[in-house]
């Protein structure tokens, strides 16, 4: 047997102290298989060792939360016995190394997290960050990631209904691919991963195990360097056809009552699924690796325990139900094998070729995993107001609409099947996507949001803003925001300034989620997003889900009628710090990010939602990146209807009025008489607002004292950048 040397320990990503702790827990040296098991279970990716103490501060409860963090995905009650199950997860490191397969398997992994709980996936979203467009790798990465997401999701027949795409130089060496899956189940048919009881068969279902992805979790827990290309063999290859079979077979098995517990084999495959299931069930598991379906000959126990081959699940069945389960998996032509049994020993025991190759206490892998309170050093937030000169508003708008972060993402989402399942009632391009709860009039609104430049300027306010924007986007379509999943992408937590971003980011999410009754029901941390010591912008992506009772009462961003009044709801002070205007027009990224007044968010949002729910308003857009000007342009372009607007007697100058990114704002279009009534109600409610213009017959955007620009010219700017960049 291989002797464990300090070099081997380091190659497994374990520190000297961690290794000493393992020896104390075992009262002996681990063997190589056991060291491999510890290395993945104690990796940042699986153990959340740098973040667990902080994540505990997040609000996770609400009357409608059925399952909070800790399972494969979170679950909320959406009424009538329906439950919505969702989660977002990163696949950043593999996607940088091999964009198509990295993104594809990210989609496959998050879908398994959702259907392992008994849900049929009904929608996918994503949040993507790439390096600057001029970087030589960016085009290749965008193309590969987008086609990988589409390639997997399209084959699965689950609509990909939206997401975000940003570009920034901090992601040049470390892109972010965060995928979110939303599923539906019956509330009383949710499957958990606790392997309760002894003597129950442990079954392996899905694809065969190969040598792919060994040490993926460990790779995802370290910084990148120039030689990261050499890690390509650790990226798994996805097979959406097998996943489709696995989905249908699992749902068929779940319709029986044969299952005690089930979990997908994600990061660190057999190791993490068996250890976590035993841990949650308060049991032990004994595995016989000779029974594992294998793709290659002569695989070692080490290979099998660390393989991240895709499209596999581990389940614990009621005794005697093996044949019933096997028949279902044979029908779908998938591998099925009884590979172990649950025990009452609280130990994970692994046998291979008649020998015991691992024998570890389950708690050593879970409870005893390191939990660090890493030192952190908060940096002063960027502060100060910024001043700008006078500039042509319409010309600036045209430039901004054609900029990489604001231009139309049509090139991206046209590669995703966004209408399969015939329940997509709001397609990509709006504030939130809306999918119908099949066979009902209910709709689920879904969004992903974060503004990393705000988070870099002020991790606390920026994280608050990410939550507030997700809440606002869901509100703007007319749904009630219910819960979020967070995907925390940061740099190396061992650097105190990065750790401070993480701590303050979590605090910001917590405060906003508490204030908005928007609990966190699951998520994922992706740390060590650095290449050659350069960290990404802090990027705590928020995936939000909301519920609307009646999809006939839904708002979209598209203008619908001539003669509508344009109402701007919320306080417009003209905050230009960290704005798109400043970056794209003046080439600066400075000043404070816009502060988020959570009380105003809630008050303004609830007012707007009520207008939609009562059928009084059907045209709403939230104000975010690029300010009022971009909001108005998007509404005009989506509806093909022009408008005539002005600063409406405010004291704010035109540039800050139209491009400021003050929060808690919405633009609403409504027939004039209705708008008058709404205005008096706004006044009575004490909500700052203004009627800033009206829709007109001419296909132009006309701004008082600034002139006008044709919608066709704006559309060409807005639609042009992405295809020109990608297809050049």
């Amino acid at each position, binding site marked *: 047997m291989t002797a464990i040397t300090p070099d081997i320990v380091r190659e497994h990503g374990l520190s000297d102290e961690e290794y000493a702790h393992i020896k104390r827990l075992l009262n002996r040296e681990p063997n190589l298989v056991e060291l491999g098991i510890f290395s993945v279970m104690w990796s940042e990716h699986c153990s959340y060792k740098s973040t667990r103490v902080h994540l505990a501060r997040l609000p996770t409860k609400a009357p409608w939360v059925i399952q909070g963090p800790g399972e494969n995905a979170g679950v909320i009650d959406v009424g009538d016995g329906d439950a919505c199950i969702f989660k977002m997860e990163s696949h950043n490191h593999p996607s940088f190394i091999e964009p198509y397969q990295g993104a594809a398997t990210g989609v496959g992994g998050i879908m398994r997290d959702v259907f392992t709980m008994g849900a049929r996936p009904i929608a996918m979203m994503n949040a993507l960050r790439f390096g600057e467009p001029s970087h030589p790798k960016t085009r290749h990465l965008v193309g590969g990631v987008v*086609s990988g997401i*589409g*390639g997997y999701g*399209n*084959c*699965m*027949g689950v609509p990909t209904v939206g997401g975000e795409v940003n570009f920034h130089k901090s992601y040049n060496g470390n892109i972010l691919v965060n995928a979110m899956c939303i599923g539906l189940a019956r509330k009383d048919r949710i499957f958990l991963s606790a392997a309760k009881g002894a003597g129950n068969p442990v079954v392996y279902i899905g694809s065969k195990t190969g040598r792919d992805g060994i040490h993926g979790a460990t790779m995802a827990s370290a910084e990148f360097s120039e030689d990261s290309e050499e890690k390509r063999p650790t990226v798994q290859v996805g*097979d*959406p*056809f*097998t996943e*489709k*079979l696995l989905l*249908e077979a699992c749902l068929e098995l779940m319709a029986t009552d044969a299952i005690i517990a089930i979990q997908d084999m994600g990061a660190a495959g057999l190791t993490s699924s068996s250890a976590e299931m035993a841990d949650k069930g308060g049991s032990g598991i004994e595995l016989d690796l000779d029974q594992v379906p294998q793709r290659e000959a002569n695989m070692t126990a080490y290979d099998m325990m660390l393989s991240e081959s895709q499209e596999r699940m581990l389940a614990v069945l009621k005794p005697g139900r093996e044949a019933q389960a096997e028949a279902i998996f044979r029908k*779908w*032509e998938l591998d099925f094998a009884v590979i172990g049994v649950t025990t009452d020993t609280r130990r994970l025991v692994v046998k291979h070729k008649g020998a015991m190759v691992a024998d570890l206490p389950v708690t050593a892998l879970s409870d005893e995993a390191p939990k660090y309170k890493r030192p952190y050093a908060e940096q002063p937030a960027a502060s100060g107001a910024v001043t700008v000169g006078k500039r042509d508003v319409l010309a600036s708008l045209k430039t901004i609409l054609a900029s990489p972060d604001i231009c139309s993402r049509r090139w991206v*989402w*046209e*590669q*995703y*099947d*966004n*209408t*399969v*399942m*015939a*329940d*997509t*009632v709001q*397609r990509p391009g709006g504030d939130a996507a809306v999918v*119908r709860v099949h066979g009902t009039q209910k709709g689920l609104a879904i969004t992903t949001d974060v503004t990393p430049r705000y988070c870099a300027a002020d991790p606390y306010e920026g994280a608050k803003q990410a939550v507030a924007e997700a809440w606002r986007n869901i509100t703007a379509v007319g749904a009630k925001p219910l819960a979020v999943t967070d995907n925390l992408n940061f740099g190396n937590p061992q650097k105190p300034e990065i750790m401070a971003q993480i701590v303050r980011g979590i605090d910001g999410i917590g405060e906003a989620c508490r204030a908005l009754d928007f609990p966190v029901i699951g998520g994922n941390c992706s740390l060590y997003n650095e290449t050659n010591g350069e960290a990404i912008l802090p990027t705590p992506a928020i995936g939000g889900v909301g519920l609307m009772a009646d*999809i*006939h009462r839904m708002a979209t961003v598209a203008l619908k009628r001539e003669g509508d009044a344009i109402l701007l709801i919320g306080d417009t002070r003209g905050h230009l710090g960290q704005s798109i205007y400043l970056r794209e027009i003046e080439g600066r990224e400075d000043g404070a990010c816009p502060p988020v007044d959570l009380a105003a968010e809630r008050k303004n949002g609830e007012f707007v939602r009520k207008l939609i729910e009562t059928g009084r308003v059907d045209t709403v857009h939230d104000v975010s990146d690029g300010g009022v000007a971009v909001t108005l342009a998007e509404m005009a372009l989506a509806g093909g209807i022009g408008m005539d607007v002005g600063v409406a007697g405010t004291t704010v100058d035109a540039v800050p009025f139209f491009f400021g990114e003050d929060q808690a704002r919405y633009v609403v279009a409504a027939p004039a008489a209705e708008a008058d009534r709404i205005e008096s109600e706004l006044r009575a409610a004490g909500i700052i607002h203004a009627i800033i213009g009206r829709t007109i017959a001419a296909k132009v955007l006309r701004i008082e004292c600034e002139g006008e620009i044709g919608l066709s010219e704006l559309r060409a700017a807005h639609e042009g950048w992405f295809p020109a960049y990608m*297809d050049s």
Partner: protein
Amino acid sequence: MKSAVVVFPASNCDRDAQVALKQMTGKDPHMVWHQESEFPDVDLVVLPGGFSYGDYLRCGAMASQSAVMRAVKAHAERGGAVLGVCNGFQVLTESHLLPGALMRNAHLKFVCRPVTMTVEETQNVFTRKYSKGQKVTFPVAHGEGNYVADEETLDRLEGEGRVVFRYAPGDNPNGSSRDIAGILSEKRNVLGLMPHPERMVDPLLGGTDGRAMFESLIETLS
């Protein structure tokens, strides 16, 4: 009208077709598993969209060899109506129930968007409730929808009035020859098209242009 929807292991528009048929006919269609070699007695067979057996080879190539396709061919030979949408169209060309082939999209990317088409022919069971020259909009969602055939075949399809749907000028999403979106078999009882009529029967989903196809079938086959 009695109908059946064929279900391959990676069909993924089977439910969409089922829902549309139920909505339009008031009756649940039979869902027929790919291993079945016999069919219930039906008037219409739908080959739905999806990825049949993964389609890692040519799309629809493996499906054309399946047990169920022998039954579909027999149904078509008896003059029964067959509607192949998207992957279903690919399966029909691979099975030689329709001429030509569907290649990768000319721009090499998957494309999902609404496309506008012209209804070119109404003398058949699928489109009689449309008017000739009518513009209709259905979504497409495919990576391999680029219809090709030799010039002689294309001339013949056009000459015999078998090009039923043509992409509107400038709205060809995949590079198909002569903007062809959907074609009929020689006996005019088999229709294959890339755009999805079954995703266009519910106004909440963006339009109802697909309804007339089902209404045509119901009127003729009931």
